[in-house]
């Protein structure tokens, strides 16, 4: 197969796998946050703040992989 075509294919599959990982991770995080807020509504604000911070960190890892996919798609 044409190496360029393989590159595009790899970029697409890579991006999809990355988003699966991010979605699963942040989904679990949000589930835990919802449960904690339900159990103890008075700390819901702090839980929400921690959730956003953890989500941003997980997305940071996602974006490494996405940056590699972008580089693959344009090299």
């Amino acid at each position, binding site marked *: 197969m044409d190496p360029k075509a393989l590159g595009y294919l790899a970029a697409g599959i890579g991006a999809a796998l990355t988003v699966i990982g991010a979605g699963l991770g942040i989904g679990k995080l949000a589930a835990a946050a919802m449960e904690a807020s339900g159990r103890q509504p008075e700390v819901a604000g702090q839980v929400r703040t921690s959730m956003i*911070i953890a989500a941003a*960190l997980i997305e*940071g890892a996602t*974006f*490494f992989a*996405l*940056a590699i996919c*972008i580089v693959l798609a344009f090299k």
Partner: protein
Amino acid sequence: MTLVFQQIEGVAADTARAAADSLGAAAGHGTPPAGGGGSGVDFGELLHHVQDAGTIDTPFGMLQLPKFPPIHVGQLVIDMSPTKHVVFVWIAALILCVVAIAVARRIARQSVPTGFANLFEMMVVFMRDEVAIPNMGFAGLRYMPYLLTTFFYILVMNLMGLIPYGASATGNVSVTAGLAIIAFVVIQASAIRAQGLGHYLAHLTGGVHWSLWPIMIPIEILGLFTKPFALCMRLFANMLGGHIVIVSLLGLIFVFGSYVIAIAPVTFVVGINFLELFVAFLQAYIFVMLTSLFMGLGIQAAEGSHAGAGHDAPVHHAS
């Protein structure tokens, strides 16, 4: 509301000109661009808007930036000509200096600020009470200037990507790498200052038997570099990804090639612009929070080894 529409108009006009250029170029070359949709939109041409370039798009036409001859230093060839992102870095620094100095003067004059100065002070106090002191204790107050500068600078650079004809310099990996290098230097400097050079080097060995040092020390040194590298990539990819999504959605208008269909992409782009606004603030905050966290690890390692366990720095919350 009108601001949002002007913004959309700006980005759409921007994309329109680029797409017109690409279609014109395609007609000139006689072959349709690769990877297109209905009207043959070239994704590479669209990406033009989020990448660095030697020209700046202004409302008065394309401004060509000067190209300086490359400087040869031995084997290295250094090209010092300014590019679009470099100019936006300067503009952001200028805006931040003007705004911050004006706000500081206003607060010095009346100790209870109102209006924009109040908002600025709110963010500064938030940085002090929620980021610097919980992570570093009262010793962290000496690093507040660096943390505040970083936070507001990244924030201004991120926000400039959202205005029409603007570009976010943080969408360039070189800019975020520069910020990460400075963060690395400050983190190591704070660790050395808190622990002393001897203890700092001792921590690099990780407390293993001396025969394992040749393995341990390179790993530990590499570990020192991964954290700022993560900071760099996180900020860069967040900003770049957001802008690519906006530009791609607007490019859909040209794929479909009709004005009626334009209402759908524009609605999506409005939503994504709001998300980008949130992400601009969030990523600036995360960069600074992680930097202060890493600095706090170094400072606490010092206190842990000096005073033993159970000795915490006093933490007050202003609320």
